[in-house]
């Protein structure tokens, strides 16, 4: 295959509605994997009172030669997922120019599925603020655990992080089942199980991440 053929193939495959959704599904699934790693690291905040465990972990990460690679990979995944999401959503909106006067669901939509775009955008805004808080605007040498705790103990921290992780949880209730379906992984025998697992994933990850702003806000206020 010549270079030209490869480009045509790329466009035909990933420019199609199914191909772009498949890319969204792949990027989304890897991002879910990242969320688990992120949660694991964050849980170290609860390991001790002075944040030494978390700080040790953060320092180890910062000195890892793999960090720039991982960060670049994450940035790419997020960008691809977001750009595709916006593109797919625009095409979907344009596909119905005149709205129905009366619209009643046949009962299959879920709160998560209805709000994928909205929750996606809230996550995006949250992500920018979150990176600004802890990645871009961080005083040199300070304990990261301390900075995190102070930020989350403030009312604005509670609101921002609370809203961000709740949107994430809602997004995820539909994300797993949708992604598997998009990739063609579906079997009637496992359908109900996958639906439940997807809902559980959103619920559990949402609550787990919510625990940080809740604990530090309540603890900080006391």
């Amino acid at each position, binding site marked *: 295959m010549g270079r030209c053929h490869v480009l045509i*193939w790329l466009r*035909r*495959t990933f420019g*199609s*509605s*199914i*191909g*772009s*959704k*498949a890319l969204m599904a792949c990027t989304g699934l890897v991002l879910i994997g990242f969320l688990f790693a992120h949660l694991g690291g964050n849980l170290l905040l609860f390991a001790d009172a002075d944040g030494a465990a978390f700080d040790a972990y953060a320092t180890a990460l910062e000195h890892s030669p793999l960090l720039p690679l991982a960060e670049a990979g994450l940035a790419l995944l997020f960008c691809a997922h977001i750009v595709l999401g916006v593109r*797919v959503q625009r*095409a*979907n*909106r*344009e*596909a*119905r*120019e*005149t*709205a*129905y*006067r*009366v*619209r*009643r*669901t*046949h*009962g*299959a*939509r*879920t709160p998560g*599925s*209805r709000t*994928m775009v909205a929750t996606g955008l809230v996550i995006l805004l949250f992500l920018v603020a979150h990176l600004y808080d802890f990645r871009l605007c961080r005083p040199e040498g300070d304990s990261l655990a301390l900075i995190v705790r102070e930020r989350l103990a403030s009312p604005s921290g509670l609101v921002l992080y609370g809203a961000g992780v709740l949107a994430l949880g809602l997004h995820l209730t*539909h994300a797993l*089942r*949708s992604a598997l*379906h*998009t*990739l*063609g*992984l*579906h*079997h*009637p025998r496992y*359908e109900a199980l996958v639906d439940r697992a997807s809902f559980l994933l959103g619920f559990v990850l949402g609550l787990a991440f919510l625990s940080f702003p809740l604990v530090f806000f309540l603890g900080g206020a006391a």
Partner: protein
Amino acid sequence: MGASPTTLRLTLHVWRQASRDLPGAFEVHHLEGISVDMSFLEMLDVLNEGLTSQGREPFCFDHDCREGICGMCSLVINGQVHGPDQEITTCQLHMRHFADGDTIVVEPFRARALPVVRDLVVDRSAFDRIIAEGGYISTDAGSAPEGNALPISTAAADEAMDAAACIGCAGCVAACPNASAMLFTAAKVSHLAQLPQGEPERERRVLAMVERMDREGFGGCTNERECQAACPKGISVAHIARLNREFLRSSVLGRS
């Protein structure tokens, strides 16, 4: 049993649109003495007869067999494709699903790829163009072959038959939040991909049909399953998963 009325008084809000390029609007009509045993289309017939006898334009709506097999009837009734019942077409909907004094909003299927031709009639030729890209097999049929000459597993035959139940009404597009034609295209692809007769054109078919589906201006699938819930033939979104599988496999591993 309480004494439920055998005739209904109804207020109808019906979409009126003179042609594709002119703006449409709802018209309000009042009907009395509608029998609960009438079908929804018979109720519209009564409305149209009344209008005609007053020298006014009747409403255009699609229908043909009036027994749920041809796929011609359409309509979104109080926000639901083919009305409030499960797994039926509009022609199979009966007025006993409505109550005396009800207001019923009757709209055409709405999607950019299914433009209104007039009133409640939409142009579904986009579906024909998707079929024309590969929703067939190109063997010379000849006379019917010996039944046992082509071995097909019962499971595959059953699933192919389930997909073949699609009557192409476009209710899936109308019900989809994104006006996507994935369930229709999936039913056609899934039907032929599971049978040996469909095998020779299997890869080319799915790529061409999906490309045409996208080009017609339908939206994409967000796996909300409203199509399956609205489908008069109960066609499962499992066929959409198979379409995705067929498309991705043919794109990535295909020989063309």
